């Protein structure tokens, strides 16, 4: 019998083969800014552990390569990911010379490629399992708990990114909460303004093209340019409007960042509201009017519920976009995870850049999964078959 190959498995196996045997697993640096030296899996881990990890990834890659049952693939990907996550910490401890606090150990390209390959396998398995929205959120929570547990256990403390964190623990959480406040606050403001504006655009046809064009133009302004444009008017407001400065409105800082994120958020919210309302079946609208609903009853009873999944899609776009964009706020003193990114760039300390970038990506990823699940639930609620 000739073995049958899984299409995606071929790609995964190729990546694993390269990453495990040719790329470096970890990077050793004498201090945080000198160039690093590459270490392979066998060099980076204690004598017995290195071959064990190699065996695990090779077996997992074989399972991915061949047409195997879904459960087996699920186990292979989870075991491989868990082994990688735990052993990168072991490598950190193993490679750090005893008593040396300057040396930095960070995951290298081989590690990231292996993580990527097995995440791909896991994502493929989860897609094929066709999980319900709630189950997907459940998987997300389990993954977050597992990562949280590894962080709290101190398993990764020997890695460079956590050494950077140890030096900045207080400001990390402060900037983190500022980041989330910026992203969620500007989203909330955009929804509060954008929904009524979208409804207005839907009702008043003459307004529609104008408003959407203006918002389109705003969307095309590069973020740094927009911050620049906002400095003058906000500075003017701060000096001339009583109480504005006390509220924290200034030409630079949080205020322009908030306003810029708000402006970027408006287009997706307004546009999706308009598209969602326009997608409401004409006959349903006509029937609603013909049966004696007032405009308000029609809006809240018929148009809005039918447009809701589309509007929610707009909100999802905005949330993910804002979590990413809020990084730029650090440029004008707005705070957020961007602070570490720009400090790191300034000091050529990649670990510090990662300290800002990794939580941002994780947040955006989690937000996308949760909102996708919510969208699917609101859209399918009305399609449930009666059992």
């Amino acid at each position, binding site marked *: 019998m000739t073995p049958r190959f899984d299409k995606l498995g071929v790609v995964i196996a190729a990546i694993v083969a390269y990453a495990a045997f040719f790329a470096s697993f970890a990077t050793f640096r004498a201090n945080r800014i000198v160039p690093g030296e590459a270490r392979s899996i066998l060099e980076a881990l204690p004598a017995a552990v290195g071959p064990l990890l190699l065996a695990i990834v090779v077996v997992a890659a074989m399972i991915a390569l061949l047409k195997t049952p879904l459960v087996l693939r699920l186990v292979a990907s989870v075991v491989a990911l868990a082994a990688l996550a735990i052993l990168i910490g072991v490598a950190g401890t193993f490679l750090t010379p005893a008593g040396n606090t300057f040396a930095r150990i960070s995951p290298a390209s081989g590690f990231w490629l292996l993580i990527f390959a097995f995440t791909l396998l896991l994502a493929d398995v989860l897609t094929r399992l066709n999980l319900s929205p709630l189950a997907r959120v459940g998987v997300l929570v389990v993954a977050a708990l597992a990562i949280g547990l590894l962080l709290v256990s101190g398993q990764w403390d020997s890695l460079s990114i956590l050494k950077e964190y140890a030096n900045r623990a207080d400001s990390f959480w402060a900037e983190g909460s500022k980041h989330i406040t910026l992203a969620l606050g500007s989203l909330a403001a955009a929804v509060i303004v954008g929904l009524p504006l979208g409804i207005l655009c839907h009702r008043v046809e003459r307004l529609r093209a104008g408003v959407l064009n203006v918002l389109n133009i705003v969307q095309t302004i590069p973020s740094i340019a927009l911050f620049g444009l906002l400095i003058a008017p906000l500075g003017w407001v701060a000096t001339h409007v009583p109480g504005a400065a006390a509220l924290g409105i200034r030409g630079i800082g949080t205020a322009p960042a908030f306003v810029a994120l708000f402006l970027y958020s408006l287009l997706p919210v307004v546009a999706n509201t308009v598209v969602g309302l326009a997608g409401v*079946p004409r*006959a*349903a*609208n*006509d*029937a*609603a*009017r*013909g*049966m*004696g*609903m*007032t405009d308000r*009853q029609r809006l809240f009873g*018929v148009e809005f*519920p*039918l447009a809701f999944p589309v509007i929610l899609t707009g909100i999802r776009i905005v949330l993910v976009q804002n979590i990413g964009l809020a990084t730029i706020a650090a440029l004008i003193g707005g705070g957020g995870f961007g602070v570490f990114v720009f400090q790191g760039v300034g000091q050529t300390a990649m670990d510090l850049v990662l300290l800002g970038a990794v939580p941002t990506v994780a947040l955006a990823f989690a937000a996308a999964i949760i909102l996708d699940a919510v969208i699917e639930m609101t859209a399918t609620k*009305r*399609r*449930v*078959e*009666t059992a």
Partner: protein
Amino acid sequence: MIEIEGITKRYDATTVVDDVSMVIEPRTVCVIVGTSGSGKTTLLRMINRLVEPTAGVIKLDGNDNRSLPGYELRRSIGYAIQGHGLFPHRTVAQNIATVPVLLGWDKDRIKSRVEELMTLYQLDPEAYGPRYPHELSGGQQQRVGVARALAAEPNVLLMDEPFGALDPIIRTKAQEDLLAIQKRFGTTIILVTHDMEEAVHMGDKIAVMDSGKLVQYAKPEEILARPASAFVETLVGASEKPFRLLSLGRVRDAVEKGTAEGEAIPGDASQRDALAELLWSGRPALPVKDEDGKPLGRVTVDGLVKRAARPA
């Protein structure tokens, strides 16, 4: 009674409905026929003020229809449209309950009314009530649309091409159901269609519209016998006239004394069906029986042919 007096609707320079006056008797079916763009739908929508007229008055049982706010007026008038317009996010039961809920009926009254209507329309309330419209067939959706229009027991029901999206077999059934329910509740129905066959079949009176004008308003027999203009003549279809005339009458009204051989035809069948059966089977006469199978007599080809002639 619905009195339409000198109703006109203009959009800028275009006159869509031009000085239409007519009276619709209570508990009858009035069918408005016309080609597309004849203004028939606009005329219908002015009755419940989905469209406000430029000039003229419409009175419902003597009251000007502008004496109430538009939405309150519309709650008292049934409204069913082509493609049914059911709310996709609400269940069948919720859809039917729309107007009673707007009127603030109490829960028990709504529930029993919904169940009554669903049973009337041969939809099991237990099985179909909790379903969503997309889970129903086209014919079922149409029935729910009409049930919803009748939910608050309106005296008047407006229908805009309600059978337009149905296939011919389901359409005939839906028309029969509607006539039966109209008789049962005594609702005044105003129905818009472009199909003269449907108009002749359904209407106690037919209003023919052309370019915004009411060109003829009369009983079906009258329209068939004496079309008021060349336009009405075309709409009726010259070669169809005798058959449409026959389709208006029941077999029991054409019964002659005597007996005949072969399969009997029910007294409630249309005379047109009887003639078709006679021609097809090559017989000169058919026996007629009533619902209980009691023989009533017979119909003959000669008798029916005389009835198909232009009335004096």
